[in-house]
């Protein structure tokens, strides 16, 4: 019983250390509808999508992402030119105004998962941590859907 309590306390402390140091901003970040496609093997980069909402009254700035799944995770943006040519580039920092959301969806912003450490298998999930400029982090568990998935519902 005591042992269990200590374990729980330790877990809570860890949680407090990783997420609790956040100042006002990133504490008010809510992530919805996270999903990723399964990968074919480990050689190709993966992509994850989600809606990052700022429910607070201060702007928050997403500065980077991290995950044990990939050595080089990065927020990218796909753009399609007037001539119909698509290209992909790191999106840089993303500032989300109070009450607004950053939408990571196919053909636009995505969490690009480069140098996969494991294959992404349908039915499994992985943690993805969003890092904010106030020093706070938000970790979300991303479910892996089928390879041909089009949205959070599959």
């Amino acid at each position, binding site marked *: 019983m005591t042992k269990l309590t200590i374990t729980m306390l330790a877990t809570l402390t860890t949680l407090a250390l990783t997420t609790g140091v956040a100042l006002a901003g990133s504490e008010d970040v809510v992530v919805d509808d996270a999903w990723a496609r399964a990968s074919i093997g480990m050689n190709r980069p993966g992509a994850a999508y989600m809606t990052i909402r700022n429910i607070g009254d201060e702007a928050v700035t997403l500065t980077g992402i991290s*995950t044990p799944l990939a050595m080089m995770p990065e927020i990218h943006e796909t753009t*399609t030119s007037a001539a119909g040519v*698509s290209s992909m*580039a790191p999106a840089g920092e993303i500032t989300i105004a109070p009450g607004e959301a950053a939408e990571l969806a196919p053909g636009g912003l995505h969490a690009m998962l480069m140098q996969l450490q494991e294959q992404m298998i349908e039915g499994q999930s992985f943690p993805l941590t969003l890092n904010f400029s106030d020093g706070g982090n938000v970790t979300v568990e991303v479910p892996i859907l089928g390879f041909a998935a089009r949205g959070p519902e599959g």
Partner: protein
Amino acid sequence: MRRRTALGYGATALGAMGLTLFVGWWRVDGPGAPEAVASLPLPLTEMDFRLTDHEGQPVGPETLVDRPTMVFFGFTFCPDVCPTTLSDISGWLDALGEDAGQMNVVFITVDPDRDTVETMAEYVGYFHPAIRGWTGAQDQIARAAEGFRASYERVPTDGGDYTMNHTASVFLFDAAGRFVSMIDYHEPREFAVPKIRRALEEETEGAT
């Protein structure tokens, strides 16, 4: 600890990628961009290229004449646009039901160095069974892209890797091989199926 390491890599990569990106932007959308050529794809009967499909069969533009055709360019290492386009096309084919069986649907890779016949076979296997995957020699891919007035470019990324910029539109041809229309990447889904039906109907008109 592991997270910190990953972040370190990320920061270094971000710097390296920034330069790559700037160069890429300069050449693709920036002042260094070539003049946009607003020409339409040639009729399939006027194209000339030799490729191999995902079952190892030799194919060319003549393979596509006699049936309405849907063609798009991409590459299998593409994490965002290509699987999305293939999923969309699979959805449109599902919506067409039995009519889908009357069409040629072809995905031509712009990255034949990585997309071998076997790779294409594995990749298209995840989508609608009507979708064929074509690959081949670099010069033949270039000739195909020229015929469709599609463009692509290899863009280096960090760590010696590379990605491909490419035309993401889907091209539609009638059964006589004449260009009918294209479905742009950001076009609302509900416009796509009527456009495909139009390509299918022109076949009927041509036959009467």
